[in-house]
């Protein structure tokens, strides 16, 4: 099964990748290294051999040198059956929920993709698949993913609220000093046409190609014409946006708000755990300390994660040394075959603590971090709040910092994996989960505010289910989620739950750095 098909099967949304091919089976070269393949392995249900027994026996062995390692490919002539046996053995050894996988005869699937799809748990939690993150990539494409210090775009991160006609594409946020802000394109603007193509309704392949090319420009200097409305139902206007190199600003807004009833509320918009975030977060916390901040609203509604150590640093800066010194921020746990050792690296499992010094991402390594010493924090969330961002929530809860969630249910990804190549396909299968200081890490359906009753409901924590409010800028005290946080601070009650509206629909965030087609034809 291709990545595209697998995502569709997960019920999220189908998409195609513009520049990178995905899927399983096969590799680069196709010249067999030996004259005949060994006989296919036999299968006995419930009896497993180590994955090394089957590794690199390929239906289409690669030849030559692996550019990632500069050593010869290890591939030998095998078969799809051999490759499926490797998938089965690898799953049984390392998959987090290996004991929940129904054993299947490797010879029963004619492709590695089809067989890999079977090698996951079918369990559900609250009616939702327990494992939502099971996919493959061609190894060549995976290794060739670029390394970069910037991306190409207009300075706009889009929210594709509806991918199918009638589509809805909004501006989620913008980067200052870019084509977006030069043209006064702000959060909440709605796109009606791109280069003359009706974004809302056009369902021709030609039209869709035009829309995708406009949403994700491929080259610096590309210009595309957009008809937009700045507010819902507002006047239409035409803007021509020019693509440029964009350096992401992961912490674009930091502000403090003295409150009439006393105290100062600090606000930090934190959009990605990328390297530059480290120094920006330090500056942000210093700014809040200087303003005598007594409460923090951390806006992570679009933060899908990144470097976990940056999460551990920020959690420390929020909670301070008093409750975090010597305490686990997150520890990785693998399946029960490996209670003390990381089976991939061989290292002894060691928890990640709350990090009190910078780790050298963008700040000088070893610098003591400032700290707010708060006993509670408000987090603004959506379904795009994921992974390392959820680790902040879970890590703080592990040291009894009260986390008050204002927004939609988070994505539910306390999991991680070590990608593994075999025969030209790189497999991603969940191998570990992150737990906090009190050994909690079971939030596969995310975190939900206590009053959330519709859509996916995860682990409920104090707070209010509030929809993302595109009619106000982020950091505006009138913006729905921020306003609810400020109100809750004065009186812990909630407006009617609106965090998922309509139920089950989430905005698909389109950032500029990965060139993907997101617009799809109606099935």
């Amino acid at each position: 099964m291709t990545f595209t098909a697998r995502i569709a099967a997960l019920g999220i949304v189908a998409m195609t990748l513009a520049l990178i091919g995905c899927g399983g089976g096969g590799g680069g070269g196709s010249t067999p290294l030996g004259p005949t393949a060994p006989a296919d392995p036999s299968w006995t249900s419930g009896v497993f051999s180590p994955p090394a027994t089957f590794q690199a026996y390929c239906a289409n062995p690669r030849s030559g040198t692996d550019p990632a390692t500069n050593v010869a490919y290890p591939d030998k002539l095998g078969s799809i059956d051999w490759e499926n046996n490797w998938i089965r053995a690898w799953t049984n050894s390392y998959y987090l929920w290996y004991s929940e996988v129904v054993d299947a005869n490797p010879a029963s699937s004619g492709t590695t993709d089809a067989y890999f799809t079977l090698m996951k748990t079918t369990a559900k939690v609250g009616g939702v698949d327990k494992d939502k993150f099971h996919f493959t990539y061609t190894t060549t494409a995976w290794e060739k993913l670029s390394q970069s210090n910037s991306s190409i775009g207009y300075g706009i991160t889009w929210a594709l609220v509806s991918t199918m006609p009638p589509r809805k594409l909004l501006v989620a946020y913008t980067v200052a000093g870019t084509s977006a802000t030069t043209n006064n394109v702000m959060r909440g603007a709605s796109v009606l046409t791109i280069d003359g193509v009706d974004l809302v309704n056009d369902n021709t392949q030609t039209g869709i190609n035009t829309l995708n090319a406009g949403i994700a420009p491929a080259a610096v200097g590309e210009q595309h014409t957009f008809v937009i409305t700045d507010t819902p139902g507002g006047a239409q206007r035409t803007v021509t946006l020019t693509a440029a190199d964009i350096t992401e600003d992961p912490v674009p807004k930091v502000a403090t708000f003295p409150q009439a009833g006393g105290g100062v509320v600090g606000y930090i918009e934190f959009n990605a755990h990328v390297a530059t975030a480290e120094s920006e977060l330090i500056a942000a916390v210093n700014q809040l300390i200087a303003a005598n901040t007594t409460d923090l609203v951390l806006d992570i509604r679009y933060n899908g994660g990144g470097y976990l150590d940056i999460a551990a640093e920020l959690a420390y800066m929020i909670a301070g040394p008093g409750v975090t010194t010597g305490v686990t921020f997150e520890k990785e746990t693998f399946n029960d075959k490996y209670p003390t050792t990381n089976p991939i690296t061989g290292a002894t499992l060691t928890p990640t603590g709350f990090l009190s010094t910078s780790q050298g991402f963008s700040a000088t390594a070893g610098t003591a971090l400032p700290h707010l010493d708060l006993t509670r924090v408000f987090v603004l969330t959506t379904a795009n709040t994921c992974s390392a961002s959820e680790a902040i929530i879970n890590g703080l809860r592990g040291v009894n910092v009260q986390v008050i969630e204002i927004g939609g249910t988070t994505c539910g990804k306390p999991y991680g994996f070590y990608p593994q190549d075999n025969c030209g396909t790189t497999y991603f299968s969940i191998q570990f989960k992150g737990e906090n200081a009190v050994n909690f890490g079971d939030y596969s359906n995310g975190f939900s505010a206590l009053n959330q009753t519709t859509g996916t409901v995860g682990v409920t924590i104090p707070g209010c289910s509030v929809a993302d409010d595109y009619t106000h800028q982020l950091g505006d005290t009138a913006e729905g989620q921020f306003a609810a946080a400020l109100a809750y601070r004065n009186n812990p009650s909630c407006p009617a739950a609106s965090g998922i509206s309509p139920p089950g629909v989430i905005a698909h965030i389109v950032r500029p750095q990965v060139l993907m087609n997101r617009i799809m034809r109606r099935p």
Partner: protein
Amino acid sequence: MRSAAPLGLAAALGFSACRALDAGTPPEPALLLAPDAAARAELLALVSAELNRPSPVLLGDGALTRESLLLIERVMPEDAAGRPFDGRQRGRPERFLLWRIDGRCVLEHEGGARLTLTRARCRAVPH
């Protein structure tokens, strides 16, 4: 459209690399001064060769013009909802620092080589 320079281009073009620049005046953090296409190409080639990986390196035109630290991170693919495949990374970015040393522009790869930029001009900036 930006394109990746093939690995090994630095050597082919005869760019000089130096690994011992400790003598002389103390190094100062530096910024590139209005790098032209040749200077940007040299920078890209040197960084690509230093990293020596199959994945292409893409540098923005403004690299090292606003700050003396160049951070190179691997582009992380995203799922259909725009969330990173791997949202709890354990690695570190590659860090390059630009120094002005004895009038030369020297790019230091932390944990790696020091490389002299021959096509670029740079100016020292306060620490």
